[in-house]
């Protein structure tokens, strides 16, 4: 064994350690797609709210509000599907380009560590709605999502930690501005995703023009 082989062995060890703990195929383009879906969703939700207020629906009793709630829930589900769909599609594409499998042990780790704070957040938000605190839903979404990202960052592209911190910060600020929930939600899930996705694409995926 010579020096060159030893160096190769060491870099092999490093590569295996990295690949068995980190999911490196997250795509920046997926982030941009999710951000655009969120912005479209926020715009639709804003229109739904305006229609509702225009019809004099403000605080006019639960029965009339149920129509609005139904519209908002439908919009939220559509956004979730579109965001997950584009995110998964571009990540799947990137994994294939790298010759890696999408559903490997490291991907399962990322999803698990993301899912724990998200599930807690989901139940917390159901609790907020149950206690008729809809103004706190957007801040709670942002904070729990940020915690999920910060938690999962150990198992994927480390940069995602900064997106997590930004979401948490934005969520806390939103907490003190309860009447601008939708605006903060659009900033956090729309604008931040697009900015993060573009930065990641620039840093890791762009094919430099030469």
């Amino acid at each position: 064994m010579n020096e060159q082989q030893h160096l190769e062995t060491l870099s092999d060890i490093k590569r295996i350690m990295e690949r068995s703990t980190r999911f490196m195929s997250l795509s920046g383009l997926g982030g941009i797609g999710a951000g655009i879906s969120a912005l479209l969703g926020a715009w639709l939700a804003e229109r739904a709210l305006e229609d509702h207020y225009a019809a004099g629906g403000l605080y006019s009793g639960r029965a009339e509000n149920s129509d609005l709630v139904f519209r908002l829930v439908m919009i939220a589900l559509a956004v979730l599907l579109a965001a997950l769909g584009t995110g998964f599609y571009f990540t799947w594409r990137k994994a294939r380009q790298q010759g890696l499998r999408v559903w490997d042990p490291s991907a399962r780790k990322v999803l698990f560590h993301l899912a724990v704070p998200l599930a807690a957040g989901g139940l917390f938000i159901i609790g907020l709605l149950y206690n008729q605190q809809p103004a706190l839903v957007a801040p709670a979404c942002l904070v729990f999502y940020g915690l999920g990202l910060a938690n999962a960052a150990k198992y994927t592209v480390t940069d995602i930690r900064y997106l997590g911190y930004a979401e948490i910060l934005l969520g806390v600020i939103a907490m003190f501005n309860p009447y601008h929930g939708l605006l903060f939600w659009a900033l956090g899930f729309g604008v931040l995703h697009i900015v993060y996705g573009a930065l990641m694409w620039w840093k890791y995926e762009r094919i430099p023009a030469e």
Partner: protein
Amino acid sequence: MNPIGNLNKIFESRIRLGVMSVLMVNEEVSFNDLKEVLEVTDGNLASHLSTLEENTYIKVHKGFIGRKTNTTYSITKAGEKAFKGHLAALEAMIRFTQ
């Protein structure tokens, strides 16, 4: 000093070294996950795992998920020490020859 003496014979196999690398940074890993990460066949991996087990470098945990057996592996204190020693020897040899 002859640093070659510190290289561990057991880690001469790339697969065994790979298994140790995975177990160093993951608490507990299943047979299938090891197979996937290291891209090796069942029989090949099994024989290397039993060598590592015989040398008490790894521990085997046999469990069940429903009716299917789920075997997981983790590194032992001795395995950790041997692996670190092997890495240190590799590094020393690189510095030695420079």
